[in-house]
């Protein structure tokens, strides 16, 4: 069964066939868009009924808003010298603030060991974490999808080789592989992001591969093949859209995980470097000052927890919406 695949050259001969293929395909894709639209509509409706998932989405929106605010603040500060917030994220002893001030109206989350406003730093941290989480998943998603599509579609030797490499990557506990990659390429936020991205490639690749295995045996792929569609076209236009739903779930869950791991690497001093306002490194900075101010550790941790939780809630909600079997 697995060698149904590479007989394209033979089918590309007849000009008549190719013409037919174009016509038929456009009709088919019209049908696809219609049915797809309805499916997505149904999924959206199911998702909207899930209150917990909506709460997660709300939190996500809030964090995205914070991230945008921090960008605005940076831009305004650059242009006018005064941004939205009264203090900058790295402003030491801003407006006569002292170290370890407990939460107050002036400083909502208090100040840290050098009198920086923790609230402002958390807002700036939202921007870093959201961006980094998103980009890390982009790395693993694109590479993973590519490998999974190829392995699943061609099968045989190519699949064996790719699967073996994936298995090797999966043999490392995730944070350890990221640590090893950072040990090799040096620590920085960008490298931490790439490392986490690489670590999660196999997960996406496996999901896509499994789905492609199922899809490629279905009638519609066979029909596309008979009509003379070439492999890249079958992969991109026919199979990928059908894998899309599953990928969306794992993207949402994946961004949460990526945020968590990059923050952990920063906590270990291998990601974001001081004085960057990154949640993980804020916890690392505050850990030695528990007796002077527990809020140095408490608030950044809550921020990580909420951000990751909201991605997980949305991911779970999407899973339930896409596959009603998972419904509680």
């Amino acid at each position, binding site marked *: 069964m697995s060698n149904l695949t590479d007989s394209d050259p033979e089918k590309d001969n007849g000009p008549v066939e190719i013409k037919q293929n174009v016509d038929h395909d456009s009709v088919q894709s019209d049908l696809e868009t219609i049915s797809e639209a309805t499916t997505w509509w149904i999924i959206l409706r199911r998702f909207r009924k899930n209150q917990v998932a909506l709460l997660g989405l709300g939190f996500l929106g809030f964090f995205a808003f914070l991230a945008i605010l921090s960008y605005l603040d940076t831009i305004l500060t650059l242009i006018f010298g005064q941004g939205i917030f009264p203090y900058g994220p790295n402003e030491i002893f801003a407006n006569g603030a002292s170290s370890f001030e407990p939460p107050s109206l002036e400083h909502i989350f208090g100040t840290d060991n050098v009198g920086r406003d923790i609230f402002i730093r958390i807002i700036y941290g939202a921007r870093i974490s959201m961006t980094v989480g998103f980009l890390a998943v982009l790395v693993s998603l694109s590479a993973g999808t590519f490998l999974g599509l190829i392995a699943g579609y061609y099968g045989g030797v190519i699949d064996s080789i790719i699967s073996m490499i994936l298995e090797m990557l999966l043999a490392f506990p995730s944070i350890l592989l990221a640590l090893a990659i950072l040990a090799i390429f040096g620590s920085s936020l960008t490298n931490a992001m790439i490392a986490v991205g690489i670590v999660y490639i196999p997960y996406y690749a496996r999901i896509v591969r499994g789905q492609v295995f199922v899809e490629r045996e279905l009638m519609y792929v066979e029909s596309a093949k008979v009509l003379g569609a070439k492999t890249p076209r079958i992969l991109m236009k026919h199979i990928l859209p059908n894998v899309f739903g599953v990928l969306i779930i794992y993207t949402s869950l994946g961004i949460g995980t990526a945020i968590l791991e990059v923050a952990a690497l920063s906590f270990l001093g291998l990601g974001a470097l001081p004085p960057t306002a990154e949640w993980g490194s804020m916890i690392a900075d505050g850990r030695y000052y528990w007796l002077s101010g527990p809020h140095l550790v408490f608030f950044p941790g809550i921020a990580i927890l909420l951000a*990751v939780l909201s991605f997980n809630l949305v991911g779970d909600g999407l899973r339930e919406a896409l596959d009603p079997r998972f419904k509680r």
Partner: protein
Amino acid sequence: MNKIKESPALISNDFQNFVKFMAKRFLRSIIVILGIITIVFILFRILPGDPARDLVGKFPTAERLAAVREIWGLDKPVWDQYIIFMQKLIFEFDIGMSYDTSTPVLHELGLRFPATIELALVSMMLAIMVGIPIGIISAYKQHTRTDYLSMILALVGVSMPIYWLGLMLQGVFARDLGWFIGTGRIEPVLSSELNLYPFHTNFYLIDSFVMGIVEGNWVFFISTVENLILPGIALATIPMAVIARMMRSSMIEEMRKDYVRTARSKGLRERLVILKHVTKNALIPTITVIGLNFGALLGGAVLTETIFSWPGVGKYIWLSITQRDTPVIMGFVMIVAIIFVFANMITDIIYAYLDPRVRYYERD
């Protein structure tokens, strides 16, 4: 079903299949391990920077650099280095020396592995003991407040940065309330005496337990247990949540099956149906998850150990990374990957033993 099982020809065929499956799986694991070792070697050899320079120190002279290169075999071409490395690994079971202490990496890791394994085992036990009942109750009381609450808590557990939880626990229970010391494996005063005790496995729980029985002095054991509590909880959080979620979903999956309906219609009490029938079957996928999470625990140990000053491999590896002690990092990464591959293999074999379909699929 019974008829098929009774036929001797089929049984031997089935057994052959199982052996074939095991052999194939083993071979695959060996190839993967060789691949991992090769990948790790290549990765660490393309490392930017010159290890010889790191080794010599601040004022390198040409002669000293050359000498150091010769001692560590860094003057040879990479290909030769690889062959020497593999030869040493396979025939002498030697994965190199620490740049920092010039002692064999395996020795250094061996000193610290017991601490990590002890912590990981305790955490895993905790995770299982809490996670599985939560999963069962949650599935049994599906759609109730208990279910929602425990599943949201489980989701919080998965989303929590464990180093943060560790710091919070340490802060509140050790620093503020003073219930625990919050660092190390045992009270510092007791540690040297325990280490000098003739019965010495470096698993403090075992050592101090033996000491308690032989000498009747339980101070050491109590202190060991006390010190395990906070890091144990911190490290257990994620597997606990994962296990609870997995247990719940596989319970729900099982509860829909025919045999459950049969058991109920026989008039069996609901408690018995759940505890005897469903739980047993739902445990199988959960066991797989537990096996897979062990590797994650070893990774999580890096974070937990740095917080609680736990003298295990996790903390050591973090120090090695900051000191660029490449052979140690290489060795540790390899060993953990090998453990992980074997753990996976064993899980797969157990699974194939429990569920014959797996072997047949594998053949196609």
